């Protein structure tokens, strides 16, 4: 089922070669310390077509699918989870513009995303805990031909770049159903009425700064509504599906990268007069890690493949995200253990892979959120008891 075609193989190889050539752990650690985005590497990645590969050629995309985007995320994260996450998250939100927006908006922004002139970030959540639709209070009120946006968003990731935010707003405050009042709005980042409050140091991915955003009478053209007004709720599910596939792929690469490093280490580390790879318990740990990676790969590829076929299965996508992220967390955690004291040192990389894996598990819905989605889908309708 998952025999790669020529194009897949080429993309995979290109992504791997690029990452091996450009990523460097010392540089990653430096950027993490300084909380600085890898501008140069991002520019090169965009030049080579790794950003927005699933977008149409007329927007400078690759006219390929989410499967190819997933392959890039996997390969990048395998070589360096942090760099991989940064480069495959820095266009987050543009997917919604591509899928749902009118042509004018796409033409204005997507080429710039693909060409590395702009980045974008998702501004949905208003609570520290995560996305809770009932808490959305940011409003986008139509006044003449303008939208006036007011409200606060929590911990938006990737701040400070030229580009835009994809902001989930209430466009119809008179309606009380999120299925009707929510809209996605493209808000250009260089607006003096947007105020940032730095979220400070993070558990992982410090090279992408996070901040709370406050919108105070931010004016945008009405045409900046992504797609139709009031369709935000339905767009959200589709958009999150796409983001979860990418997250699964990032996690898959992170898991594979941690496994690669662990295998390499145990084959050179000697204790008790033999390579530790000779110990049965170490071999079994590696066996479990490799099995988890393989399962993560199967389900991630399946979800991506079906998405491109137009068969978007929300439950399967949630399963993929949940499974791949869990695999990444467990495999990276075991990698730290196999490295022993050295695994706890930043220099070893695997502790950073673990922290990145945990981020993949928590963003776009933690495990419980995916379980809610999967459970509902699998169980289906439940008949009410007859009175």
């Amino acid at each position: 089922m998952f025999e790669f075609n020529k194009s897949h193989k080429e993309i995979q190889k290109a992504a791997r070669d690029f990452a091996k050539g450009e990523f460097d752990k010392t540089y990653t650690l430096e950027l993490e310390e300084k909380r600085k985005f890898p501008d140069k590497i991002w520019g090169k990645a965009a030049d080579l077509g790794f950003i927005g590969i699933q977008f149409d050629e007329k927007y400078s995309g690759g006219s390929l699918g989410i499967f190819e985007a997933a392959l890039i995320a996997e390969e990048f994260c395998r070589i360096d989870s942090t760099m991989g996450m940064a480069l495959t998250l820095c266009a987050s939100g543009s997917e919604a513009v591509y899928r749902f927006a009118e042509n004018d908006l796409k033409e204005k922004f997507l080429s710039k995303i693909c060409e590395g002139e702009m980045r974008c970030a998702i501004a949905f959540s208003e609570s520290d805990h995560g996305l809770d639709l009932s808490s959305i209070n940011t409003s986008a009120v139509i006044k003449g031909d303008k939208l006036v946006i007011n409200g606060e968003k929590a911990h938006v990731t990737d701040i400070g770049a030229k580009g835009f935010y994809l902001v989930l707003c209430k466009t119809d405050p008179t309606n009380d159903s999120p299925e009707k009042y929510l809209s996605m709005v493209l808000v250009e980042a260089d607006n003096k009425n947007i105020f940032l409050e730095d979220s400070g140091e993070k558990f992982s991915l410090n090279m992408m700064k996070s901040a709370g955003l406050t919108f105070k009478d931010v004016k945008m053209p009405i045409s900046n509504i992504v797609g139709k007004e009031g369709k935000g709720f339905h767009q959200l599910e589709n958009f999150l599906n796409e983001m979860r596939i990418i997250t699964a792929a990032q996690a898959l690469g992170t898991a594979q990268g941690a496994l690669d490093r662990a295998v390499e280490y145990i084959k050179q580390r000697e204790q008790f007069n033999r390579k530790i790879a000779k110990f049965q318990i170490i071999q079994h740990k590696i066996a479990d890690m490799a099995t988890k990676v393989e399962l993560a790969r199967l389900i991630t590829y399946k979800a991506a493949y079906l998405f491109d076929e137009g068969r978007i299965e929300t439950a399967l996508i949630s399963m993929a995200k949940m499974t791949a992220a869990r695999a990444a967390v467990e495999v990276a955690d075991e990698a730290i253990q196999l490295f022993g004291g050295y695994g706890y040192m930043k220099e070893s990389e695997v502790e950073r892979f673990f922290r990145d894996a945990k981020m993949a598990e928590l963003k776009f819905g933690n495990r419980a959120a995916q379980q809610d989605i999967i459970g509902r889908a699998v169980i289906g309708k439940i008949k009410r008891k007859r009175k």
Partner: protein
Amino acid sequence: MDILKFTQEHDAFRKRLKTFLAKEVTPNVDQWEKDHIVPRKIWQEFGKAGFLCTSISGEYGGIGGNFLYSVIVSEEISYTVHSGLAVGLHSDVVVPYIDSFGSQDQKAKYLPGCVSGDIITAIAMTEPDAGSDLSAMTTTAVEDGESIIINGSKTFISNGINCDLVVLAAADPAVGNRHEAISLYLLEADTPGFKRGKQLDKMGWNSQDTAELFFSDCCIPKTNRLGDPGAGFIQLMIKLQQERLVCAMGAVFAAERIMEFVIDYCKKTMISGKPLTRSQAVQFAIVEMTTQVKLGKTFMEKLCVDHMEGKNIVIDTSMAKYWTTDMVNEIAERSMDLCGESALLESNPIARAKRDVRVMSIFAGTNEIMKGISAKFMGL
């Protein structure tokens, strides 16, 4: 029923310690985490206030307290949510080597400073190529008349930058049997040829000055050997029981702190207008996690009693070390899950807690080594 019987003296000690930590430690922790070290001054203040080396007898300035004082210090330190001021390591792991195996002269020379906090100690066993397998150590100690010449290097040494005195494990290259070659030495930090290497950048324990140590023709008096030549391995085996128990205590108390925080978080955090604790999944998770902590605590406290009774509990302490440190890691991770994305911000204490507890299943003998020891002593 309380397994540990604390007396009024213990309670008064705890109260004083709590006040001290709240005033002198907790407010400074964030700064120390940034500095990647704690100031020497806090060791001295902690010692002068009578909280260091509580087991050391009055003769050397201590209070000659039982092991319950160590339990109290471990528990109270856990409220400060940091690992830089590694007093458990100093009081309950390193200094006992001097107290148990030192000569009268060694004790008189070093113990008062250890108690007062003027002497900060470190223990140097691990080497780049000798971690789990201590017998592979290559640091050498060669007798030369009345002196001993030390050469080699150690790594992952806690208190490595602040330490004034190192309890050092080194092997005599002339002795064929590796286990009989190792002796422990007391090495003062101003000994020529001793150098502190770079401070190590770690996943957690950011306020702890973990470092590499280098010894290049370090000349120390022969009288600075602890006990008989070649006794090092046995001395380590004897003292590792308490070290593992100290690890189990740290793990259980850290887990308790994490649970207190996460339960409070889940009660206060609203989702869709209801507190998180209304979610059945959240309730079950909290119940399961709390059960694990209670099991770990009961086991650990029982072993504290056995330890105070002088029992040989090498199997049980090895099991407790691996089980409780795995447990606290699982608790920290599941707490991150409960906190959701907010756990990804360092402003959420769970983020630091997870980074800090990860090392527990590695240090003081990895959990794999703990299982190996248990298997061996169970006759498997």
